[in-house]
């Protein structure tokens, strides 16, 4: 009697798929990495300088950042994958000390006089264990600046249905941060303050057709501790913040055009009174087998925090902040990416422009914060698989 060994079609497909160079590096959460991949990105972030008409005192120069980011993804065995991320960045520029009204009653910035120089190191490692139709990952991280240290840990898991059409995923993370503000003569700043953050999410991913998959989910966060900005003149914020959000994402491939459309939407709300909408589209156009062009467009709008004030007057009492990040505004970002991919290596280049204004917000804004930012982000990178 002869026995015929039946081959599992899923295993056959996975094996065939992994043999393809473009797919081999796919270390998605449902399959362990089979090759080691190392990556590097150099990013240059440059904010537009302020105009002198926006400033009462201080420097118009804003932040420039140089960032070097590294990633290692490697299999430890058939079921275990390790990802290590590390980044080093240097920052320089001036920041706003406060907002005051000029003689005409218009909000103007009081900037720090001298350029601030800082650097940040960030390292994180994630270990993911793969099993039938699912995986579980634990990660730890550390981040350090002159005046800021953070330790974080997270646990994530996902499980697919038997037909692998639906995947359920979730995770919970914790971060413990300490800020030790740089002291300056004549300015009263705290010596050392702490804050902690817990965040979590739950999501469902669904394959709708051979060329379309969607993902939807909820996320929440809780901050506790010192949440004010120690470098601002008058910045008093609540010592707790609860946030909630929902996200929907879609990936749709068009074989005739050899293009993939990415669409992401996020709704965010917190108990400081901020609500925001973020919508992003990216079009991944394959020009040849190796070359891909990726234009993207992102829109963002937020309402102001309940305690946001448009100037730092001593007449304000209780919680108050003139931080532009708590002000009402909208922003448009647009960019272009280029990917060139061979069997074992890949080159990337990206440029992105970001402009924020009061007029871009969904709701009308009476007085725009003069510190709202516009920036350009340039990045180049390389990945190598072996």
């Amino acid at each position, binding site marked *: 009697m002869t026995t015929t060994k039946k081959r599992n079609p899923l295993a056959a497909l996975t094996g065939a798929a992994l043999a393809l160079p473009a797919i081999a590096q796919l270390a998605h959460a449902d399959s362990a990495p089979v090759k080691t991949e190392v990556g590097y990105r150099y990013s240059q972030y440059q904010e537009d300088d302020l105009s002198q008409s926006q400033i009462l005192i201080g420097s118009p120069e804003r932040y420039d950042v140089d960032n070097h980011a590294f990633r290692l993804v490697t299999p430890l065995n058939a079921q275990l994958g390790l990802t290590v991320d590390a980044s080093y960045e240097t920052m320089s520029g001036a920041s706003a000390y406060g907002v005051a009204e000029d003689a005409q009653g218009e909000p103007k910035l009081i900037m720090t006089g001298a350029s601030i120089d800082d650097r940040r190191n960030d390292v994180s490692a994630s270990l993911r264990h793969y099993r039938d139709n699912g995986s579980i990952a634990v990660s730890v991280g550390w981040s350090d600046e002159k005046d800021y240290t953070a330790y974080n840990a997270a646990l994530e898991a996902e499980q697919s249905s038997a037909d692998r059409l639906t995947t359920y995923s979730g995770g919970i993370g914790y971060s413990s941060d300490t800020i030790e503000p740089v002291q300056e003569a004549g300015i009263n700043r705290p010596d050392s303050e702490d804050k902690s953050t817990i965040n979590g999410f739950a999501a469902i991913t669904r394959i709708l057709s051979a060329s379309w998959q969607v993902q939807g989910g909820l996320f929440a966060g809780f901050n506790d501790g010192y949440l004010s900005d120690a470098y601002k003149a008058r910045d008093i914020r609540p010592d707790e913040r609860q946030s909630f959000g929902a996200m929907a994402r879609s990936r749709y*491939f068009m074989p005739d055009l050899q293009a993939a459309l990415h669409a992401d939407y996020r709704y965010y709300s917190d108990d400081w009174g901020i609500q925001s909408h973020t919508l992003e589209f990216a079009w991944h156009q394959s020009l040849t087998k190796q070359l891909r062009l990726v234009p993207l467009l992102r829109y963002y709008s937020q309402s102001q925090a309940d305690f946001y004030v448009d100037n730092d007057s001593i007449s304000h009492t209780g919680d108050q902040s003139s931080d532009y990040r708590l002000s009402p505004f909208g922003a448009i970002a647009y960019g272009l990416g280029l990917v060139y991919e061979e069997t074992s290596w890949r080159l990337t280049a990206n440029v992105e422009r970001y402009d924020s204004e009061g007029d871009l917000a969904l709701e009308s804004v009476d007085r725009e914060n003069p510190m709202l930012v516009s920036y350009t982000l340039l990045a180049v990178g390389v990945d190598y698989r072996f």
Partner: protein
Amino acid sequence: MKKLLLLPFVLVLAACTTTESVQPWERGQLARTDMAWNTDPLHNAMREHVYTSKEGASGGLSTGGGGCGCY
């Protein structure tokens, strides 16, 4: 405009109710690198880091790291 922005979320929820079966051997397009949820984790980490430090909202369908980097 606000209702328009909520449309993608409603569409995704509606789409999740469909039951079309896609066999494993039909998933080549879904496995393409340009169809990944995050096509460039290193670059997107930098982008997200900047957005988080410039905007009032943050968070998404992952557990974020830590650190300030508040330019």
